[in-house]
């Protein structure tokens, strides 16, 4: 598969393409794609925030917006590695299936539709059709999420239900930790009766 075919495949033939990526692991290309998507989203996201009436009313300094976008981008890049490692580890623990590099490659390419969301959102915001912009943003978000599930499925060679469980486990653990933290803080309350 050529690079162009991979990009086309992720958008229109995701299962076949992700299977190829999980087996062949073109990680360099994957990370490059992820970085390009990230940088593009930072630029267009900044444009979007300039159009936001609510944000402009906050009178935030322009540089703060850029600073937050860049920091978010850097965190996203590191989170990609952490996600791939974590999901692969969960797959290994629960289903005895792991493929960290393949999963990292698949997740990197799965971000491609994410570049279309902010771009279309920006265009529709410019045209003043805010509701459509929000709708498209939501649709693209779901598209990327579905691709991520498929990425986990194809990389770990498990079925869709198991892939969803693998993806949900970190969130469940996070929620459980948050609940425990809240309970812990509440019991440490200095107020006594």
């Amino acid at each position: 598969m050529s690079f162009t075919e991979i990009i086309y495949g992720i958008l229109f033939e995701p299962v076949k393409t992700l299977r190829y990526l999980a087996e062949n692991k073109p990680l360099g290309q994957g990370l490059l794609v992820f970085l390009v998507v990230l940088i593009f989203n930072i630029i267009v996201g900044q444009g979007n925030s300039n159009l936001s009436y609510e944000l402009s009313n906050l009178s935030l300094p322009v540089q703060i917006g850029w600073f937050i976008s860049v920091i978010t981008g850097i965190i996203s890049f590191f989170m990609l590695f952490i996600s791939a490692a974590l999901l692969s580890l969960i797959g290994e623990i629960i289903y005895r299936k792991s493929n960290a590099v393949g999963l990292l490659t698949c997740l990197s390419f799965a971000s491609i539709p994410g570049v279309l969301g902010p771009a279309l959102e920006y265009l529709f915001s410019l045209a003043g059709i805010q509701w459509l912009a929000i709708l498209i943003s939501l649709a693209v978000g779901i598209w990327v999420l579905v691709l991520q599930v498929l990425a986990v499925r194809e990389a770990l060679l498990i079925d869709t239900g198991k892939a969803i469980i693998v993806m949900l486990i970190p969130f469940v653990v996070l929620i459980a930790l948050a609940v425990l933290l809240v309970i812990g803080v509440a019991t440490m309350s200095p107020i006594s009766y």
Partner: protein
Amino acid sequence: MKKKLVVAFMLVFLLVVGSIAVVNEKGKTNFAGSDSVIGIINVEGTITGSGLSGIMDSGGANAIEIMENIKTARERQDIKAVVLRINSPGGTAAASQEIAEELDKLRKAGKPVVTSMGDMCASGGYWLACSTDYIMANGGTLTGSIGVIMQLANLEELYSKLGIKMETIKSGEHKDIGSPARPLTLEERQLLQSLIDDSYEQFLEQVKKGREGKISEEELLKIADGRIFSGRQALKLGLIDGLGNYYDAIRQAEKMAGIKKGEATVEVLNQPNFWQKLGLSNVRAGDILFKDNIMELR
């Protein structure tokens, strides 16, 4: 072929959208917000022509950045008026002059400029204020200080105590004028005095031009000896137009631009960035180690 076309189309689309975002970010075109913006430009600290500041400096008011902001205000269609918030003891003559020229261009473009004085708006700061349409100060603001100063250190005795002897090779008699290694000669003193006098004349012309009809030349000459005034004294003398705070200045700018009260969006054009807030912007070792003695309006 079909796949290549789809990918190429997607790339072109993304490039176009990205370019629009970049152009709009630079121009800060306001599509969705209010179409009447009052631009705020802060002049904070010593006014300087240098784009560099030391680690321990608060940064000062950099002429290039301020001129860029004024230019932006002139070019943006949505900015209807500007409030120049000055909190400065003054600065170098040339830097104050070039900012004032840019302010004149902004006013010529039909955009009213209102000065809002903070704690202090003296000397070079007042020079800038004279290039605005309306000057507003607080009663306790320190302003005035119309004058020019140049201070040179004579370190001859210190050098001798340290055993340092400066050797000077120069192309002309006055090339080392102001050298810290020797006292000024009478001729040099006269040369520098004439320089200061000329700058002072220019300062007076600026105030006369800016305060025309509000203070007579005679009155001005009486008070233009470097003394400072409170905002209230300055109002009585005609050096400012009114007393009021920052918000009063914004309201005044709205009024002068013909915008109904509270309808304009206020946008600060030169908020300090993250690094500037830490005092770490554009730091260069040479700037920390060497500082020139230049003529100042302070």
